[in-house]
């Protein structure tokens, strides 16, 4: 965790995708115009969120097996950072929607479902706040986290595919794969997923370190 080669890698990837995302060629599409470049910035936020929530579930499982308090801390802190990423994804998404679909909130299934998924994690935080006893709080919230995670996956990965959506790849709309020149976009998009996930992980480790210092300080 304290080595820094992966932090440099993440930064390089993010810088590369920012420059490449703004300068490299993209398909010419009506309505979308240049905003298609938002794909390199908006979608990686969701990817970062998913990475962080997966880390959180992983540590919740570990907590149930080990009842080690640091595992619980890791689970909470990654949820906290994941929520920041999800909010950023929601805001950038709604701005993009305003200038392509016409409204900030277009009642698109994916928008609605991700909002519900965020509620799920707010419920997790509310649950944590409602219990005072430390061990009990860690255990119960870990159980709720694991119980809720598959539901969130269904919510944002499976359900939108059943319904019509303005997002590409859902319902009747073609996926980005069907646009030509996709290999050119992939060269930026996949590094962006990786880069932003690493940045999210980095922020989470910082939060975790601060939190464990605080706890050491208080005890």
């Amino acid at each position: 965790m304290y080595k820094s080669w992966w932090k440099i890698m993440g930064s390089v990837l993010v810088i590369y995708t920012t420059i490449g995302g703004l300068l490299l060629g993209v398909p010419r599409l009506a309505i979308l115009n240049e905003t298609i470049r938002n794909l390199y910035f908006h979608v990686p936020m969701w990817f970062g969120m998913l990475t962080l929530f997966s880390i959180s579930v992983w540590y919740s499982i570990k907590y149930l097996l080990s009842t080690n308090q640091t595992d619980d801390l890791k689970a909470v802190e990654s949820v906290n950072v994941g929520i920041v990423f999800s909010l950023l994804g929601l805001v950038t998404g709604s701005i993009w929607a305003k200038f392509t679909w016409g409204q900030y909130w277009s009642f698109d299934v994916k928008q609605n479902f991700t909002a519900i998924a965020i509620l799920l994690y707010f419920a997790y935080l509310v649950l944590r706040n409602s219990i005072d006893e430390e061990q009990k709080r860690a255990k119960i919230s870990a159980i709720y986290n694991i119980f809720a995670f598959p539901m969130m996956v269904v919510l944002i990965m499976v359900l939108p595919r059943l319904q019509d959506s303005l997002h590409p790849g859902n319902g009747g709309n073609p996926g980005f794969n069907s646009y030509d020149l996709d290999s050119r976009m992939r060269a930026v998009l996949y590094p962006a997923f990786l880069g932003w996930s690493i940045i999210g992980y980095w922020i989470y480790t910082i939060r975790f370190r601060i939190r464990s210092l605080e706890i050491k300080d208080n005890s």
Partner: protein
Amino acid sequence: MQFANEVKYLLYKEILLEWRSKYAINGMLLYVVSTIFVCFISFVTMENKITWNALFWIIMLFAAINGVSKSFLQESKGRQLYSYIIASPAAIILAKTIYNILMMVILTTIALGVYIIVFSYSPSDFLLFYIAVILGSLSFSTIFTMVSAIATKAGNGGMLMAVLSFPLIIPVLIVLIKLSKNAIDGLDRSVSLDEIGILLLINVMTVTASLILFPYLWKD
């Protein structure tokens, strides 16, 4: 075999206790029927079938939250200790879930009958609608049973129950409403296979997750 016996015994005990007082089922029935009457009095006729559908599921949702959350919240400490001694935690959650499923199926069937009679409208593909209702009571029971166990252990009853269960139940509700809308429109049944599959998948997922997680929740 021991596990099956434990489940059977616990289930028998639940049903026996309910049968003696008939408090939960009567209370829920009264709640559902009076809500339907209130809706009828305020709407009188309902031209819009989408409203008809949505209203039904909203009534069912609140009945389920009230009814199923009782399963753990209203259990005395002594009874919890008793079942803790005689059975394994997985058996307890399974018995509770099955009991809730039975109760919800009976309740929703009666409620659907009353609803259809009061509004004098029946969906064009009744069998499919009934399948949706059965699947609905199945998913409500499996999800709410586990969430009520979590809320009870957190020791902050009703309020927490609503906060924790709504985000979990909304995806199920969306699929249910879509499925029952297909039934109302009388679409070909092959169209609805996706939704039925997803609902079954969600139920299998929740039951497995409850069976694995509940033992951790149960031991103090």
